[in-house]
């Protein structure tokens, strides 16, 4: 039974694409069939973060419009056999995506995969509402910062009104992924705490991803952080979140990168 998951946030730059790639890879690393789908038509980046930017021939719009078969547009990851990418079109705009086309495409992906992870564009316009429209559950990516929390609150409202599930009167499951969290600053009272954000947004917590240099390093390399450095703090946090998505109960901890005297003296080890 396939699960369609939308990774969304309202605000841009909070880590949707990073989280889509990392969660997708982490789920695929457990042997499940996963496809990550870029809905950011015109501003695609999931291909770049996944390191597949030179392999995109056909995209979501081609499939949604029925120009090509799904099989022709799916790009298989070179590191994980069970991980696939469906890129967005870079030359079109979001109006080129039809609701019926997206419905058919998602329905077809459901047949083939265990997980369909939709990377939503920022904003609350057509692209974002189409990305969430057919989802079974949503991961709301939020930074512990006022503008991000406000926009997440808005997106939660849309998830409860604009999705097919909500329209049928069913409960739309929404999970919070708190990213770029800095334990030290939150402890000092200089950053919203986990409890602050949870109380304001009132949705269950999927995971806490600590602020880390490894995230930028991973996107530089074109690899999800769970692949580029699987033992790093953000990678472990994403892997824990993926296990929770799989229904495992994993205690909520905030992994940290250990800086030993040796790494301080000699710098970070290579990959």
């Amino acid at each position, binding site marked *: 039974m396939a699960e369609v998951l939308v990774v969304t946030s309202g605000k841009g730059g909070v880590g949707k694409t990073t989280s889509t790639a990392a969660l997708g890879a982490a789920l695929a690393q457990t042997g499940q069939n996963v496809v990550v789908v870029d809905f950011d038509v015109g501003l695609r980046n999931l291909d770049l973060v996944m390191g597949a930017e030179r392999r995109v021939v056909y995209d979501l719009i081609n499939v949604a419009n029925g120009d090509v078969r799904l099989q022709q547009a799916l790009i298989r990851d070179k590191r994980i056999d069970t991980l696939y990418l469906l890129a967005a079109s870079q030359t079109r705009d979001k109006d080129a995506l039809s609701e019926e086309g997206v419905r058919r495409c998602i329905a077809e992906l459901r047949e083939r995969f265990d997980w369909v992870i939709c990377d939503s564009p920022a904003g609350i316009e057509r692209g974002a509402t189409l990305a969430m429209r057919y989802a079974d559950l949503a991961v709301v990516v939020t930074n512990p*910062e*006022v503008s991000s*929390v*406000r926009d997440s*609150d*808005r997106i*939660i*409202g849309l998830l*409860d*009104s604009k999705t097919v599930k909500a329209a049928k009167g069913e409960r739309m499951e929404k999970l919070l992924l708190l990213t770029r969290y800095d334990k030290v600053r*939150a402890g*000092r*009272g*200089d*950053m*919203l*705490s986990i409890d*602050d954000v949870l*109380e*304001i947004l*009132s949705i269950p917590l999927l995971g806490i991803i600590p602020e880390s240099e490894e995230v930028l390093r991973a996107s530089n390399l074109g690899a999800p952080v769970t692949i580029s450095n699987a033992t790093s703090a953000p990678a472990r946090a994403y892997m824990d979140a993926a296990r929770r998505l799989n229904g495992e109960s994993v205690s909520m901890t905030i992994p940290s990168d250990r800086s030993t005297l040796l790494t301080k003296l000699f710098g970070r080890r290579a990959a």
Partner: protein
Amino acid sequence: MKFFSLLAGRRSAPLARERLQILLTHERGATGHSGLIAILREDILGVIAKHVDVAPDKVEVRVENSDEVAILEIDVEIPRMAARAMMPRERGGRAA
């Protein structure tokens, strides 16, 4: 500058939290995130307006969530004249 920020205290997160809570209470009503609150607010306003002249922006409906229960807070600001009319009239008696 540094002196003032020292006086004001360094912890900025509590202020962020408070600002968000106030803002989102209003926005949820306006955007229909919490449809119930918006509906309640309209109904309450309607009932009060039947008897007392009250400005629409003076009726506030909030829900405060704690672990166990949610508390519904209704705040209605009415002009002093109208408030006087609401008090029970007692001749020469105690103030109500």
